[in-house]
C-alpha cells in the first residue's frame, strides 16, 4: 500500500478533486475491516523507518477567494481550510462549524467551485485558486437564498449548529437537481448530522425551497 501511495505521489494528478463523494468512498475502504487496519499499521511502521522528508516549517501565504473576496493569510501548510476560515482570516468566517474535525458530520461544509466539501478535510493551501462559498456567501438575514428562507419558515433548525452545513449542502444540491424527490433530498444530506432532531423539517424545507425556486 505504501508503494501504491508513493506511485500516486509521483504521478501528476489531473487536478485535485476533494469532493465529498470521493472522500466517502475512502471511508468505506478504511471501514472495510481489521485486516486493512493491520495493514495500515504495518505501513505506518514502515513509514517511520524511512528517512524523514524535509519538514515544511513555518507559515506560508495563502490567498483564498472567499464569497467573492480575495482574502490573504499566513498559515502553517497543515492548516485546514476550516481552521483557516475560522482562526486565521480577519474578520473570521465562522459560518462553517467545527464539530468533528474528521469528515464525519458535515457541519463544516463549504462549496469549492460550487461543489460541497468538508472544509475540515481540505488544506487551505489546496483551496487556493478555487471559488470558496460559505453559508455567509449564500445569503444574508435580509436577503436569504431560497433554502435559507425555507429553513426559517419550516423551522428546520433548533440549536442551529448543524444548520450552515445543511443549508450549504442543500443549496448546492438544488442547483444540480432543481426538482428533487423526498428520497433524493434524504440521499443528498446523508453526509450531514443533526443532534436536536430537525431532519423531517430539513426535508420539508429543501422541498419547499425547490418549489419556491421553480416558481
Amino acid at each position, binding site marked *: 500500500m505504501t508503494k501504491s501511495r508513493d506511485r500516486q505521489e509521483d504521478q501528476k494528478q489531473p487536478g485535485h478533486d476533494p469532493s465529498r463523494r470521493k472522500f466517502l468512498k475512502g*471511508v468505506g475502504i478504511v*471501514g472495510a475491516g481489521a485486516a486493512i487496519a493491520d495493514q495500515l499499521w504495518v505501513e505506518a511502521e514502515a513509514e517511520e523507518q524511512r528517512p524523514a522528508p524535509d519538514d515544511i516549517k513555518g507559515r506560508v501565504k495563502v490567498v483564498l477567494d472567499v464569497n467573492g473576496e480575495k482574502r490573504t493569510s499566513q498559515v*502553517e501548510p*497543515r*492548516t485546514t481550510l476550516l*481552521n483557516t476560515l*475560522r*482562526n486565521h482570516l480577519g474578520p*473570521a*468566517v*465562522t*459560518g462553517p*462549524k467545527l*464539530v*468533528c*474535525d*474528521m469528515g*464525519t*458530520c458535515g457541519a463544516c461544509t463549504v462549496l469549492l467551485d460550487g461543489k460541497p466539501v468538508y472544509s475540515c478535510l481540505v488544506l487551505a493551501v489546496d483551496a487556493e485558486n478555487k471559488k470558496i462559498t*460559505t*453559508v*455567509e456567501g*449564500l*445569503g*444574508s*438575514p*435580509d436577503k*436569504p437564498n431560497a*433554502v*435559507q428562507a425555507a*429553513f*426559517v*419558515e419550516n*423551522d428546520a*433548525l*433548533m*440549536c*442551529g*449548529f*448543524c*444548520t*450552515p452545513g445543511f*443549508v450549504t449542502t442543500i443549496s448546492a444540491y438544488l442547483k444540480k437537481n432543481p426538482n428533487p424527490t423526498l428520497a433524493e*433530498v*434524504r*440521499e443528498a*444530506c*446523508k453526509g*450531514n*448530522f*443533526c*443532534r*436536536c*432532531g*430537525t*431532519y*423531517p*423539517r*430539513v*426535508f420539508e424545507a429543501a422541498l419547499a425551497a425547490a418549489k419556491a425556486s421553480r416558481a
Partner: protein
Amino acid sequence: MQQQQPQPQPSPKPKKKIRVPRVVNGVEQMVEIEVDEDTGPGWGPNDKHTLLNHKITRVDGPKKVTGMALYTYDMRLPGMLYGRILRCPHGHARVTKLDTEAASKLPGVKAIIQGPLTELRFAGAPVAAVAATTPEIAGDALRAIKVTYEVLPHVVHATDAIRPDAPKVVAEENNLQEKAKNGDLQKAETAFATADAIVEGEYFSQRVHHACLETHGMVVDYRGGDSASIYASTQGTFTIPGDAAKELGLEQSKVIASVEHMGGGFGSKFGIGIEGMFACRLSKQTKSPVKLMLTRYDEFVMAGNRSGSWQKLKAGVKNDGTIVALTARQYRLGGIGQGSQAGQPYIYRMGDTYREVYALHTNEDSSIAMRAPGHPQASFAIESLVDELAYKIKMDPVAFRKKNLRDEVYHRQLDRGAKEIGWSRRNPVAGGNPGPLKRGMGCAVGTWGGGGNNQCKVDVTILQDGAVYVAVGTQDLGTGTRTYTRAIVAEELGIGMNDVEEHIGNSKLGAANPSGGSTTAPSLSPSVKDAAIKARMMMAERVAPLLGNPKPEEVVFSGGNVSANGRSITWKQAAAALPAAGITSHGVWRADLQARGVHGVSFAEVEVDIETGFIRPIKMVHIQDGGLPLNRLTMESQINGGMIQSLGMAFYEGRVMDAQLGMQLNPGFGDYKLPGSLEMPEMVPIIDDDDKREAVIGIAEGCIIPPLGALVNAVFNATGLRIRDLPITPDKILMGLMNTTVISRG
C-alpha cells in the same frame, strides 16, 4: 356557569395555598406555599391567543441559517490562545511522572498545567492542559508531553464489575452499592401465586452520548486586573460566574458570563466543568484570552453520557389484564458516578410491588443528566414487560395499558395515537406477517413534571420612540426561548414580533434558572408575562389622558393601536406620552401561570428484514400535552427531536467499551451511529389540544421517553423477537432468529 354563592367578606389580600415544585439538593419536591389569590390576569383560554399557540418562526432563525449567529465556538479575541486537554489512555492509572519540558519549548506553546487528579479512574480522564497560539500547536504540545503511568486494574462492563473478584473502581469500596429498597417482597411473592401468567426479563440499556454538536467549552477573557468575561456554551448563564470567579481569584460580581447562542446541551452543560477550570487557570497564568473547546474525542470520553441500566423484572398478570405484582432489581450504571434510573413500576399500577435499587460502578466517566434523566431506561424495560404481559394473555397492548393506567389522559392519547398510526392494520400475531420484510407496531406511555420555579426576573422597557426591550439572563438552547420571550411581550402589548427585541444570555441581566428538567418555559414565561402585564398597565396609566381617562385595565392594546372609550391612537403615539427615559417594569414568577405534569404516548411502525436483520423505521407518532403551547412550531420541532433521539437509543447509538483496554472503541461520529437522514421515518408530532390547562408546562423531556418503548415493541410485533438489550442492531435480530441467546454487553 354562574353559581349563586354568598359574597365573601372583602379582605385586603386574600391568600390561597398552592403546591409548587422546589429543588432541594438536586431533588425536586412539592411544597405548599401561600400566594395572593388575585395575582393578576392569567393567560386566558388557549384558543384565544393572537401570537402564542400559533406557529411563530424562530426570531434567531435568519441569523442561524446565514452563519451570522455567533456561538461560543465562534468567538475569536485579540491575542487569544487555544487550549487542549491531555487525556489518560488507561482505564485506571496513576501518573507517576509528567515531563513537560519538550512540550514547553515548542514555539507557540504558552502554558502547560497539570490536572487536579492524582488517580485517574477512566480512560479519558484529564491529565494536563496546554495553551498555544494555534489549535495545531496545542495538539503538538499534547503529543510532546511525556507521561509515565502506573497502570492499575480496571473493569468497564457491569456484568464483570458485579463479580466479587472484580477490580475495585474505588479502593476499599464495593463496586455495587445498595441505594434503596421499596415495597414488600413477601406480599409481592404471595401475589405472584394468584397470577395466571408470569413474565420475567433482564433488560440492558446502553450508555448513549449527548453528542452536542457544539462541544463543551468556553472562552475565558482575563487579561489581568480585577474582572473577566466568559463566553460559555452552557445551559445555565448563571452557573458560570461563581465557579469561574473562584478559579480566577476574582469577585463573582466581576465575572460576566454570556451565551448568545449555544449548540446543544441535552442536560450535559451546567457549570464550568473541568474544561472551564482548565480554561480559567490557563487564562489566569497567561493573562490572555483562552478558548478551550473540547475535541469530539474529548466530548465522547468525558463530557457526557446517559446512565446505562441493567434491570431484572418479574411481573404477574391475571387473565382479565390486571397486573398483580412486580419485583424489580435495578442497577444504575453510571461509571464512577451514581447513575440514574426511575423506580419501577414507573407509571403503571402493578398491585404489590417491590424493588431494590443499586449503583454499580465501572471505570468509565460519570454519567451526566441527559434529557429525562433515568426515565427512558425505566420506560424501555417496563414497556417491554407490559407488552410481553399483554401478548401472554392475548390482550390488545393498547387495551392492556388502559387497564393498568389510572390517568384518563393516557386513555385519550392512546386512542388518538392508535388512530393516527393505523393500529387496526396491525397483525395481532407477533411475527405473523408473511414474507421476509415484516412490519409491526408498538406503543408506549410516558410522563414528566415540567413545572417551574421562582427564579426568573424579567425587565420590560418601553422607550419614548416605541422601541420595546425584554431583558433576562436566560439562555436559548435551540428550544425557542428567545422566540416565546418576545412573543409573550408582543402579544400582551398588541404589537408585532418585530416590534420587540429580546436581550438574553448574559449574567448582567435579570436572574434566570438553568435549563434542565423542562423547567425553563414554566419558570421563565410567567415572569415574562408578569413583566409584560405590568408594562401594559404602566403605559395605560400614562396614555389615559389621551383616551378620555379610562381605568388602566380598560385600555385595549391590539393590532399596534392603543384604544379606549372609542378613541384610538397608534403604538408610536402612545409611546410618545411616556417620560423621556421610557418605562421599565419588573416581572416576577407567578405559580398560577404554570403547572406541572405532562403526559405523552408514542406509537411506532417498523419493518424488519429477517434475512439481514435490518430494521427500517416506517412511522412514529407522539402525542404530547403541555398546557398552553407557547409556540406550536418550535414545540412540534421539539417533539420531533425527542422522537429522533429516542430512535437513536432504540436502534443505533451506544458506547462500546473494550474490556481489555478499558477504553471506548467508538469515540467519534464515524463509529458512534447517530440517527441520520436515511433512517428517518415519517414523523407525526401531535400537540394534545384536549389539554385545556391555561398554564405553561415544559415538554422537552416528556417526548423523549416513550418513543423508545414503542419502537422496541414494534420490533416484537414484527418479528416475535423480544430483544431486551439496546440498541437493537441487526446482529441481535439475526441471533434471535437463530434462537441464540443474545449476549449482553452491559
